[in-house]
């Protein structure tokens, strides 16, 4: 009798455990599968073009009669675009986080937090659409350009897009700063502003670094919004030039690249480069978060 009841309880329990495990393994299978596929699909073109010519070649003309497959313009554009978005988005994001976690009255904070959450929920194609119809014509007017679809437009859109992740991660980090640190600083005569900037921020340093890395990952991986505002010409980057990012290079040519052609394989290679970039950033994030736990 006793044994039977145990069996009845254990069977569904075991079954559920099996399902949980299967779901957990699914994520692993997908990551491993995608990695393997990208490496297998991305290597042939790199080998055919040559690693140096591929990474450091300044001319991309995949469909020209004498094709050229250099992705330096895309690499530099992705790096510049991401850095630009950070330069603009990070100060705003971190100061918003300070406001939310330290300064704002609860009601104000709740309002701002809702706004930030909504910002995070806006699909990237909507960012692109707004950028394309509002931002691009305005930039064209202001800077007297032939076309406003430039690296600058992409940077501005990306800066807004990374705000939510920067804000939410920095807010969490700033909330985690022990109250004693701040109390001690205030007791020693420092003003609130001095305390927040000199004590709270450095104490939350590793968490804010994590926010930076998360923002970089987001900016690096964005394709849709950028495709609509950056012009997509494979130029070496310049603030007022039409540029193509790693992501948009893949997206804009995939449709017409014949299966099995060097062009299509080279697009896979770009995907591999992008993947390695993001992987590197994730590793960095991992290291930073570990450092935070030790604090």
């Amino acid at each position, binding site marked *: 009798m006793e044994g039977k009841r145990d069996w009845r309880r254990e069977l569904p329990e075991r079954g559920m455990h099996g399902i949980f495990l299967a779901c957990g393994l699914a994520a692993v299978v997908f990551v491993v599968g995608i990695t393997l596929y990208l490496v297998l699909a991305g290597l042939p073109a790199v080998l055919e073009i040559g690693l140096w010519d591929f990474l450091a070649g300044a001319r991309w003309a*995949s469909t020209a009669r004498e094709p050229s497959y250099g992705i330096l313009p895309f690499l530099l554009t992705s790096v510049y675009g991401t850095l630009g978005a950070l330069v603009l988005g990070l100060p705003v994001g971190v100061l918003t986080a300070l406001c939310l976690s330290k300064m704002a009255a609860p009601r104000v904070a709740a309002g701002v937090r809702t706004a930030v959450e909504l910002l995070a929920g806006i699909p990237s194609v909507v960012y692109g659409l707004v950028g394309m119809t509002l931002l691009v*014509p305005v930039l064209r007017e202001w800077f007297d350009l*032939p*076309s406003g679809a430039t690296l600058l437009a992409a940077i501005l859109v990306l800066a807004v897009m990374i705000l939510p992740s920067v804000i939410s991660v920095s807010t969490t980090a700033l909330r985690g700063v022990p109250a004693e640190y701040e109390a001690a600083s205030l007791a020693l005569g420092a003003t609130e502003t001095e305390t927040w900037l000199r004590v709270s921020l450095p104490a939350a340093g590793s968490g804010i670094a994590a926010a930076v890395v998360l923002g970089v990952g987001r900016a690096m991986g964005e394709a849709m919004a950028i495709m609509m505002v950056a012009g997509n*010409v494979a130029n070496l980057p310049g603030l007022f030039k039409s540029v*193509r990012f790693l992501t948009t290079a893949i*997206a*804009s040519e995939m*449709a017409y690249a014949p299966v099995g052609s060097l062009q299509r394989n080279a697009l896979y290679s770009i995907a591999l480069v992008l993947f390695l970039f993001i992987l590197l950033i994730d590793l960095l994030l991992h290291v930073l978060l570990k450092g935070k736990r030790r604090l």
Partner: protein
Amino acid sequence: MKGVCVAAMLLCLTACGTRPEADEQTARVMTGGSTSMELLMNVLAESYARDTGGAVVTYEPTGSGAGVDGAASGTVDIGLSSRYLKEEEKGRVVETVVALDGLAIIVHGENPVTGLTLEELTAVARGEITCWSELGGPEEALAFIGREGGSGTRTAFEEAVDSVDRCFYHQELTSTGAVVAAVASNPGAVGYASLPSLNEEVRGVAVDGVDCTEETVRSGAYPIQRPFLFLTPRGGEMGEEAAAFFEYATSGEQKGLYTLAGVVAAFG
């Protein structure tokens, strides 16, 4: 227990994944060639399948050159090409022009320039003209907007203005709609788009004095256009199914499908 669970899940997945194999009995017409004709062939194939109750027309986007070879060697029933045959190819296959793909040159609605010559257009495409004042327009910076590499529309335009791989773009967009939208929002923009995608937001300009309309494209007066060809082997008979599809695709009743695919039907 774990094993049973996993097995049950796998069974579930396989059950969902099974698809009825295509019926080998159904008539099959194989076409292949020009990548630019993909939209047209999809539209034709879909409509043909509906009207005949499931006849299958396959399409391989292999390029116009491969379309000629395929038709000549019989690996496809109907070869597809988006350029006229070269002299040496004419002995091997017979060409039938089914459609003409006219590219309108579009500018912003407020742009006062109403016409360009082919030479001016070439200079614009190559980035040699940077201001509309050089073309009799206002002091407005000129932005040349086109399609991404690999697009058949881009190839057609660059060939028409003799600037293949020499064009200087301000924006390379991935669809005709995006080009139209970009031109509509930029007073200094000039771009190209297939004729049926024109709308009231942008204005087409005449090239060498000829407006881009269905009539001028069909008569050949409008210079920026290319043909879509069906190719059949010279001296060989088409199979029954292929001939039926050929007839269907070139009958006057299907003109609407060509418009839907963004081209001008060359017949009727």
